[in-house]
């Protein structure tokens, strides 16, 4: 008997709100739109749902050049033309040249699959509108072969967005929506625990304090997020940095060790240095 409810895994801490959103989407077979700061585990969510519910996972990563049609199917006219010149037999059946897209693959799955549409906001502004009917009815029409493709089982669709573009209302109406808030200190501790179980309490407490202190610096272009924290902790452990280095008066006045894992652009680094400098002078 397969599990039917999602409540996080041993590698992935899901808040009750998130679990509720996932379960609602699974039960009613509606697409679930996930937004949140970069690095809060949006993409990973789909993998974890697939793992927990033991479903196959289909991933469709969106780029700025992606078209909605590519998710359904593409007609490879060029190879058909070439084949016709070489006199191949298979040229007579147009179906040989229909290349299935991710959505079609998911529709054909024998068990209910999980489909991840990753970073939908990267695509052209009309992209979501072109998928309305497909997501609503879970079917589409292949004009070349006059065939209606219908989902055997409505897939569990997880859509992620980084808010680079706003999505059209008609699209939003068809989705469930959840915004992953940035985890508070307690949740953060659980997340780090899950990833580095052997971590020294002391080091973790100091690392978290330094991390949240850094997030509070006003005007950062890219605030460090969960995934950056995890990377940083990994580095701290690997370099065997003692907790003392993160604590004390000096630590508050200088950049934390290995800060490159936390701050990703030079403007932010300058800004933090400036803030540190000012606070040193104020002392």
């Amino acid at each position, binding site marked *: 008997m397969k599990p039917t409810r999602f409540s996080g895994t041993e590698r992935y801490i899901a808040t*009750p709100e998130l679990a509720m959103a996932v379960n609602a989407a699974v039960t*009613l077979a*509606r697409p679930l739109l996930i937004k949140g700061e970069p690095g809060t585990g949006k993409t990973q969510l789909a993998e974890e749902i697939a793992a927990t519910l033991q479903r196959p996972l289909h991933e469709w990563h969106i780029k700025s050049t992606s078209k909605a049609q590519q998710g359904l199917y593409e007609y490879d006219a060029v190879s058909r033309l070439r084949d016709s010149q070489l006199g191949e037999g298979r040229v007579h059946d147009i179906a040989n040249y229909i290349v299935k897209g991710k959505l079609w693959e998911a529709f054909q799955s024998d068990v209910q699959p999980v489909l991840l549409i990753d970073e939908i906001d990267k695509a052209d502004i009309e992209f979501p509108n072109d998928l309305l009917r497909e997501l609503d009815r879970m079917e589409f029409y292949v004009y070349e072969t006059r065939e209606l493709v219908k989902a055997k089982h409505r897939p569990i669709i997880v859509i992620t967005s980084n808010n680079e573009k706003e999505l059209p209302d008609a699209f939003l109406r068809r*989705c469930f929506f959840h915004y992953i808030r940035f985890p508070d200190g307690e949740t953060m501790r659980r997340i780090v625990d899950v990833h580095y179980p052997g971590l020294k309490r002391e080091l973790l407490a100091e690392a978290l304090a330094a991390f949240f202190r850094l997030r509070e610096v006003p005007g950062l272009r890219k605030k460090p997020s969960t995934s950056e924290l995890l990377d940083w902790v990994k580095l701290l452990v690997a370099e065997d940095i003692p907790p003392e280095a993160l604590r004390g008066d000096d630590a508050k006045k200088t950049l934390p060790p290995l800060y490159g894992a936390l701050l990703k652009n030079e403007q932010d680094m300058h800004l933090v240095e400036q803030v540190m400098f000012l606070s040193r002078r104020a002392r």
Partner: protein
Amino acid sequence: MLVRFFLDLRAGGVPVTLPEFLSLLEALDARVASLSAEDFYHLARVCLVKDERHYDRFDRVFAEHFKGAEKLFEAFGVSVPDEWLRALAERVLTEEEKARVKALGGWDKLMETLRQRLAEQQERHEGGSKWIGTGGTSPFGAFGYNPEGVRIGQPGSRHRRAVKVWERREFANFDDTLELGTRNFKMGLRRLRRFAREGAAEELDLDGTISATARNAGYLDLKLVPERRNAVKVLLLLDVGGSMDDHVRVCDELFSAARTEFRHFEHFYFHNFPYESLWKDNRRRQTERIATDQLIRTYGPDYRVIFVGDATMSPYEITMAGGSVEHWNAEAGVVWLQRLTAHFRHFVWLNPEPVERWDHTPSIALTRELVEERMYPLTLAGLDRATAELRRRGTAAPPAVAGTNPLPPP
């Protein structure tokens, strides 16, 4: 069941539609949520709210609805014209005055008094210490100072002190402009697109392939062409600081919409009016400036220039040398604006101030004249007209043709 909640949400400004509401009922029917209030709250939010910006509104309606409390404000039959509350000026009180402002006792008493005042008061009022209006020290009204004040129709707290926010939807004028999302801006800016082929060859050129194949004795010869891309070049010049503080949000959205929409996009900032130099990074405006001359030399006349500014200042800042509030400018702003408009023939000025106020501000009227009436309000309709203007100038033949048709020979 829950229909009133649905209606309340809509009244509360959360854009909920019937299908979404039905899917909530469906989810309840499928027993997705257990019988706890918190679960229900999360489920309702997942189904009904589609934008994190609306979470707060949803929370407020939810709290109000499920507390079973009567709406506090339904009792007020009187509607307050928003004209009363339009902030013309914020009176800055001295510390001494602030100290003298006495709070009026508890919340209930405040509301009771507000009700009485609303009934008594007949006209718009500003300043003073009793009537409801703007900039006063009465506990009621917007943009004033009283430690226990009630805000009416003012988004975002000035002094962050009001005990409770009372935002009636009748003051929606202000909100309507806020509804102008990035997406709307993008749709507006889309009109400005002109496509040209450039970059790597990656699209099949059907006509070219057919003719090349025919020449090739029927053997396939593929021809590729570069994909069509947006070739419009845009230069955005933004006013920052001072009177523009009120419009930061809408300008931000315009900025982010424009940045993702155009391949060739540059932006620069100025304060109140463009003078001899502009800057790119607001934090380093003192150190890293670019001379306006250099800007004119760097970007060709094919760039479309969009000025964004409220043009609200003293007219001297435009007409006089040395008029700038920030620095000594050797040449008047009007000279610089004329240089810019002479070089960039395709330009518009977007003004976030409401159109009704344009005629009452001399500097706006003056600027409008300087930009040859190409000033448009920063609303969807205004943006549409502005892009139409930019496009028209873009496709039409040089202006010399218009109006100078030679007379037909006799």
